[in-house]
């Protein structure tokens, strides 16, 4: 007779139902759609490499890099956030709303390439977060080298090597 005592008890207590149309708060650390901080992104493409469902695509152009994200394909696993070397990615604290036509939620961010100091060609950005991981100490020389494009950096290194060998 246990079930009947439960049923009678339920009749005395108010129902625990959420009334329409209530709001249910999202829990802390809720894994919602992925958001990017464009000023931190270096265009490495690790997030696209590690994405399970190809929801993130990093497409490199001549003078900018596209970070395309479709929440409709996302599994909200958080691998991209975990693997980003500069912590440019985060997850929203709320879920995406329902939509009426396909691809309505897709987002594209463009990260513009800064220009090289010497030759003026656009080059993928090297942010300070990456420098802090790569070098023990970020000296002035490291900083100035990081603002050059790849070819100019190689030439600067060769000049440095030649000057050492001449000594």
């Amino acid at each position, binding site marked *: 007779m246990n079930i009947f005592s439960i049923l009678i008890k339920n009749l005395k207590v108010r129902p625990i*139902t959420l009334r329409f149309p209530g709001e249910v708060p999202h829990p802390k650390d809720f894994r919602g759609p992925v958001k990017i901080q464009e000023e931190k992104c270096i265009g490495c493409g690790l997030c696209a490499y590690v994405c399970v*469902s190809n929801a993130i695509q990093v497409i490199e152009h001549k003078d900018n890099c596209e970070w395309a994200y479709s929440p409709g394909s*996302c599994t*909200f696993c958080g691998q991209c956030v975990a693997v980003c070397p500069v912590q440019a990615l985060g997850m929203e604290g709320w*879920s995406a*709303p*329902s939509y009426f036509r396909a691809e309505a939620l897709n987002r594209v961010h463009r990260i513009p390439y800064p220009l090289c100091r010497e030759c003026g060609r656009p080059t993928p950005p090297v942010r300070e977060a990456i420098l802090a991981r790569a070098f023990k100490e970020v000296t002035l020389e490291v900083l100035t080298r990081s603002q050059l494009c790849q070819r100019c950096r190689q030439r600067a290194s060769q000049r440095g090597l030649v000057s050492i060998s001449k000594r």
Partner: protein
Amino acid sequence: MSIIQKLVRMARRRSPWLFHLNTGGCNGCDIELSACLTPRYDVEQAGILLVGSPRHADILCVTGPVTCGTRAALETIYAQMPEPKVVVALGNCPATCDVFAGSPAIEGPLDRILPVDIYVPGCPPRPHDLIKGVAQAVAILADQRTRKRPIMEGMNP
């Protein structure tokens, strides 16, 4: 007959019957849909009933990417539902095939096969977002005139 039309519209808003179909997904969205029937969310307070036969239903909730094996069943079930009806794509799988995209066993996103009215994103969507999506579908259902939609070719109704 404006009063009759208003009454019918009110009836369609207050009494939407759901048919749930899993076309090969992981069951995550199905469990979230079952959670909507529990005392905490209780969709029956809005009149929503989960019915056992597509002929009794107004709303078709599809979960899962449409696999090759379930495509025929999906089309038959859609043809069996009487008008007016709406289709809700629950979760990311029927919308974009999510992690299964590109698989040879998948017939593709749901909108390649059926006309979809509402997409509820999430993997899986929270029960409350699911209820909000179904409520939008009910609003679409109430506003529809009973128009003729073509029955699928070659399907026995």
